């Protein structure tokens, strides 16, 4: 399956302007203080939030000598954001109108019970690498990840932190291997309405009826047998993905660094 440098590079370089704002209920007399950043879609809020917090720490006296900053969490339109999901996925899931900059509220109090705690680099590294391992279980029964050195695992994660495309792909190209061993299943997660993401076994085998390559529409049908694909837009990295895109091509070129293709399913009449 074709290896598309331009697509990979464009996806890696995708950025979202984010305005980190304070919650007026927590800082009533400085609610206008914001911090603006361009953040990579393929990165994580856990990794970029540190910089925003430094800004707030230096300008807000109450946050000095306070442990609260360690428990910071993010909210958009009253919905807590899962910091262990890629930023681009969160934006595509939550920002239905796509208004920029994306205004995200930084909260320091009342950490929600429902939210996974992912406020340190170590926790983020753990969730990221476990997700890559899960993807490799689907693709190669875990053969590639288990053969890699700890240094290579570290390079996958650290290259996201450093925004280093070449370092990332130096290791990640092994996870895209499709000759020895061949890819068995495609790691895809579908996000629909407020439901937890859906993930099923998506084979690379051609469709039995048409003998055409397994594509995004056949994957959608397998995940949502009761939904008609004509009524939905499938969005990843902020664009409408053509439904006849072969899943193997998507996996090689369109996956996030965690090796999953993340697809947001949105009714067409919402757009």
């Amino acid at each position: 399956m074709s290896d598309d440098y331009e697509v990979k590079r464009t996806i890696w370089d995708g950025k979202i302007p984010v305005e980190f704002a304070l919650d007026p209920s927590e800082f009533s007399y400085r609610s206008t203080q914001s911090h603006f950043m361009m953040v990579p879609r393929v990165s994580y809020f856990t990794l970029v939030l540190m910089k925003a917090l430094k800004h707030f720490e230096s300008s807000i006296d109450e946050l000095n000598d306070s442990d609260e900053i360690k428990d910071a969490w993010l909210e958009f339109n009253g919905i807590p954001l899962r910091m262990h999901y890629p930023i681009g996925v969160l934006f595509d899931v939550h920002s239905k109108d796509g208004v920029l900059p994306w205004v995200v509220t930084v909260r320091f109090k009342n950490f929600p019970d429902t939210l996974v705690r992912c406020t340190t680099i170590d926790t983020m590294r753990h969730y990221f690498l476990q997700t890559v391992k899960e993807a490799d279980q689907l693709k190669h029964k875990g053969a590639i990840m288990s053969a890699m050195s700890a240094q290579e695992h570290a390079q996958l994660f650290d290259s996201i932190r450093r925004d280093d495309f070449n370092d990332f792909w130096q290791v990640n190209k092994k996870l895209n291997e499709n000759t020895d061993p061949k890819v068995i299943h495609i790691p895809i997660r579908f996000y629909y309405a407020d439901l937890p993401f859906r993930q099923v076994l998506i084979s690379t085998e051609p469709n039995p009826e048409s003998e055409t390559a397994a594509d995004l529409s056949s994957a959608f049908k397998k995940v949502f047998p009761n939904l008609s694909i004509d009524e939905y837009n499938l969005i990843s990295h902020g664009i409408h993905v053509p439904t006849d895109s072969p899943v193997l091509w998507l996996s090689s070129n369109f996956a996030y660094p965690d090796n999953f293709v993340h697809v947001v399913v949105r009714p067409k009449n919402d757009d």
Partner: protein
Amino acid sequence: MPVEAAAAAPPISPTPAPAVAATKKKINVLVKPAGGDTPILKFKNFSVDEDRTIAWLLLFLRQALELKSEESLYVFINQAFAPNPDHTIGNLHTCFAGSPDAKLVVHYGRTNAWG
């Protein structure tokens, strides 16, 4: 909960109710200790709704094992990876149980054995 609210809502077109949640399956889970100093549970098998999460499973096992809050607990699939806390048991069963009738095998341990 959004899942139940959506399932209870009458199916008004053109936006179909989230059909995904309409048929809630039970998943049979088989839990096994991951070796080392892992405490042993009094049970091995149980069944849960497919939309339960790994976070829920961890809490359930922590209570069964009577762990203190500072003691860590990990669960593993395929003896290979620790699923993220908001992964559902239904997803993991579909992808890693091997067949629709098979149990989802989950190893648990106090250390990140397959880190």
